[in-house]
């Protein structure tokens, strides 16, 4: 079932369809929130989903729109969370605690996955915050440029530029030369 269809059916009360929408959207949403609030991401995303479930009847749009709508809600929840912590997004965006992902590392697979997640977040954390968030929205959540701009409340041109620069920088850092040239810090560095 496609996302747009799932959302539409969920709006008509179909619980299974809502579960489908959740499974399609949640990973990207969680990744985005991880970038914003670090290890509180699960809680914040959970709060966001409560609001999404509550306001589902208000939503208008297709699958892509649903991604944008949910990302906006998640972002608000994340910023609320950071405000409660009396920290500005800048200081906690990709802070160290982002590396302390939830301790659900009971299986080897989870450990490996967590490792990859940490590395990936750290790579993105090297970008300036506006670029990092634009990249998250574009490639992790999967929004197009205008939708990402709407989530951020910025002009599409500015977000496009930020995403472009961020992605370019990431791509450059991924070349073998970039890695050799003391490029990205990695988790394995200190160990």
């Amino acid at each position: 079932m496609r996302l747009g269809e799932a959302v539409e059916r969920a709006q008509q009360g179909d619980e299974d369809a809502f579960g489908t929408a959740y499974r399609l959207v949640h990973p990207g949403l969680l990744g985005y929130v991880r970038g914003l609030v670090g290890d509180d991401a699960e809680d914040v995303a959970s709060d966001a989903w409560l609001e999404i479930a509550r306001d589902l009847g208000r939503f208008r749009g297709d699958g892509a729109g649903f991604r944008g709508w949910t990302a906006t809600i998640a972002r608000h929840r994340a910023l609320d969370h950071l405000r409660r912590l009396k920290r500005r997004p800048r200081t906690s965006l990709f802070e160290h605690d982002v590396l302390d992902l939830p301790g659900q590392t009971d299986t080897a697979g989870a450990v490996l996955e967590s490792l990859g997640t940490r590395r990936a977040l750290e790579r993105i954390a090297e970008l300036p915050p506006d670029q990092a968030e634009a990249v998250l929205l574009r490639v992790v959540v999967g929004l197009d440029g205008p939708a990402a701009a709407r989530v951020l409340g910025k002009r599409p041109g500015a977000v496009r530029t930020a995403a472009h620069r961020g992605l370019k920088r990431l791509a450059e850092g991924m070349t073998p030369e970039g890695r050799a040239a003391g490029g990205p810090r990695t988790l394995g560095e200190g160990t």
Partner: protein
Amino acid sequence: MRREEQEPAEAPVTPDIEALADAVRGRGGAGREGEARALAAFRASRDAGTHVRTGRRRRRDDWRPAAGFRRAGTRWRTALGSLVATTVLGGVAMAAGVVPVPFERRIDPGPAPTVDAPRSPGDNPAAVPAPGTTPERPPQPAPPSASARGPADPGLVGLCRARSAGNGVRNGQVFRRLTAAAGGEDAVDAFCARTLEESGTGGAPSTSGKPSKEPKATKSPKPSKSPKASKTPKTPKAAKSGKVTDAA
């Protein structure tokens, strides 16, 4: 969903970056537990009836694709665009002489309504009435005879404005009327400068010194209407508010 499929690659999304994004997404974290919570919230909301598509509309909940907005907004924009284009370009068209000037009757240099005696060409209505004119007659509507230095006749002011808007085209009805009023083609620019100055609005001799661009071109009745019409309207709000009313 359309957008999901044809996402434009405005930035270099390499396979490496896709892999990075996959890593950030992970497996969706707590998995079934989070989903169970979300589903519980969904059921609660549904059973409370809040999923019914009514209630207060909030712009932030409307993520319909731009195509939808455009389709809905087209009618508004077309209507508004036509209105603006008519207003703006109408002046240009009049200046170019391709449409009848609605106020030309007022400046028709022909017989003035109350003329019972000819006025001297240099008649200055502000001054003492020239011999032959009726004293009671208000000095206002000085008929623009040749090289008349009348006050800012509203009709003439309008014509001069229209002429400015038309970039000083030297043909068409407006120009002919002004020529008649000014007493010669070459006198039109100076005449309009004076007229506009006297009218107190836009006294700048906007067209004087500017060579006419298309001396003989007979403009088509619809000069460049469409390109401007599509540009002018900026009514996203109107379009949206009009669209938000489709409560199911």
